[in-house]
């Protein structure tokens, strides 16, 4: 088995994160203006970084943390680039 069971805590935790992703998705679909959707994408980006770290915990492999690191840096540049475009500065 590549992973280890931690009991109820992890189930509650994943449930909370999935609810968070779902709510952000609702805002992403329904958001009246473009900045609303950019905010939703920003929140989804951070939650994705956390999910990658937690998956590293589930699979017990340290190499997975590198994915989270690369993701944290690059998704930030994407969000800032889109914000600069909206502002008209790009």
């Amino acid at each position, binding site marked *: 088995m590549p992973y280890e069971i931690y009991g109820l805590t992890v189930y509650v935790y994943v449930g909370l994160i999935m609810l968070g992703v779902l709510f952000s998705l609702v805002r992403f679909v329904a958001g009246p203006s473009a900045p609303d959707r950019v905010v939703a994408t920003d929140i989804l980006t951070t939650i994705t970084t956390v999910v990658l770290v937690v998956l590293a915990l589930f699979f017990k492999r340290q190499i997975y943390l590198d994915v989270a690191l690369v993701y944290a840096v690059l998704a930030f540049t994407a969000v800032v680039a889109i914000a600069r475009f*909206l502002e008209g500065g790009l």
Partner: protein
Amino acid sequence: MIQKTIGEVFLIIGGIFMFLASLGLLRMPDVYNRMQTSTKAVTLGAMSSILGVGIIHPAWLPKCILIMLFILFTNPVSAHAIGRAAYRTGVKLWKGSVCDKYGSCMEDEDE
């Protein structure tokens, strides 16, 4: 054992804050208030969760701290960029807002 319990407590706290951030994203009336609630809560929630993972596996702690620092430095910057972009594309403040000192400054710049 006690170390795993502490890590799980940090994980749960992080999960609750991330959930609250998305709830705020859903409930607040305009872009600026959404950003108020979501940026703060998601930053602390993500940091707390990653610290929990680092406590459960102490060998991973340096890399976890690096990811935490990246999140701590980059999240306010992206929130600031989105907020300014929202104002410049003409998103109105919520109708219950008290004052808006930034609009006069923008008019000065246009002249």
